[in-house]
């Protein structure tokens, strides 16, 4: 960090440029493509639909499945396709981030499948994936109490900053992805990797709330725009 500006010239509380495209896919029930800084991510939702294998189904509610997957070409060094331990963990915490707002009881014995494909990665993929997934769920007509918004906060050069970029993620002092239902302020995802004092943590959480609030606005705008776009065709 130099003169209060970061490696990509952003201020500590500034998000990278973000763009949402709702309904980018035909086959999926709901979909959303997001570009967040250098991240390019496609999220799609199938469901509610029948669960196979049947023994996974729950008698009185839908199950939620979330699969975060990185394309081989999404990173600097070509990655072998398929889930690795990191993808599996991210899938789990991401699912747990969105599950709380979905009204699963409306759809017993079914599954709502969320797929997030990372086409290009540039730090903060799990958060961007969750943002896209929330919009895709809304696009699919899944009933939810609210949209979940996510961003990552971190610490670079002893300063708490919002939305780490790759270099900041690699050389920074802390990385803290967070997700929340912005309307209620309820936190649904919280992970921290690195070193933060209690004070820094509180700052980071506050910054995270502000970041998520901005993103929630964008998610909402994108959904409303899709409709407007259909009208103006």
């Amino acid at each position, binding site marked *: 960090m130099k003169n209060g500006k970061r490696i990509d010239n952003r201020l500590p509380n500034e998000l990278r440029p973000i763009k949402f495209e709702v309904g980018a896919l035909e086959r999926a029930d709901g979909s959303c493509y997001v570009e967040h800084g250098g991240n390019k991510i496609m999220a799609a939702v199938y469901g509610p639909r029948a669960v196979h294998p049947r023994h996974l189904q729950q008698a009185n509610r839908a199950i939620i499945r979330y699969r975060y997957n990185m394309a081989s070409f999404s990173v600097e060094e070509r990655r072998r396709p398929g889930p690795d331990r990191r993808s599996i963990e991210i899938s789990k915490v991401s699912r747990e981030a969105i599950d709380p707002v979905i*009204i699963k009881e409306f*759809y017993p*014995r079914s599954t709502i499948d969320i797929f997030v494909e990372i086409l290009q990665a540039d730090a903060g993929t799990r958060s961007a994936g969750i943002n896209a997934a929330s919009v895709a769920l809304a696009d*699919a007509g899944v009933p939810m*109490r609210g949209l979940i918004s996510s961003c990552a906060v971190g610490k670079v050069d002893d300063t708490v900053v919002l939305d780490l970029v790759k270099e900041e993620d690699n050389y920074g002092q802390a990385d803290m992805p967070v997700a929340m239902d912005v309307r209620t302020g309820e936190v649904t995802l919280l992970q921290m990797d690195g070193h933060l004092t209690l004070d820094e943590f509180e700052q980071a959480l506050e910054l995270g709330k502000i970041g998520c609030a901005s993103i929630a606005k964008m998610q909402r705008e994108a959904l409303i725009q899709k409709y*407007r776009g259909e009208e103006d065709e």
Partner: protein
Amino acid sequence: MKKQEKVDKTIVVPGDLLSEDAAKAAEGTYVENGKVYSLIYGLADEREKVRVIPLSGKYLPATGDVVVGMVSDISFSNWKVDINSPYEALMHISEYPRRIESSEMAKIMGVGDLAIFKVVDVDPSMKIELAPREGQLRVLRSGRVVEVSYTKVPRVIGRAGSMISLLKSKLDVNIFVGKNGRIWINGKVEDEDLAVKVIKRIEQEAHTSGLTDRITKLLEEEKHGVHEKR
């Protein structure tokens, strides 16, 4: 589409605040701390009650619904029917108007056959039971089925059936609109083509005002050009 078509309802997303009066909450909403919020991505209808009309989503059957279903499998005593819902529906062999043996089932309705059914029961675990719509089982042996989002079916029917009457009078085809978004059309191929085109247009513009007029106009224009195609 021209820009003067406007939506007469507000677009909302899950979590949007709709009203501070909990008593007004209706479909597509939920109440929290006395306030009404949207549960879905849809159009908010804020007249007497506050409800949100879905723009997308899966069809959930209710008793009494009449649907177009496709047989996906046959077991010893049930036809398994795909009704374009997360849930498979069953028509029990005993629902067939006359007594038949299990071995006759496939001949009456085989895998891949479509028919018009009535939903006679939906239990809490979403087990769905079907029966023929009324008396005879109507298996659809010709024509085509168009699928639209079930959320657009009310628009295809229109207020007091205005849209569907218009279609039936101007299009030279038999039309049956299933509550599950499956619409059966039967006639000459060119006429079916036009019907499909018109229905798809209704689906796309369902949320706009003045649609009935535009569709009337489209039908007039197409009627003159229709026999030149194909």
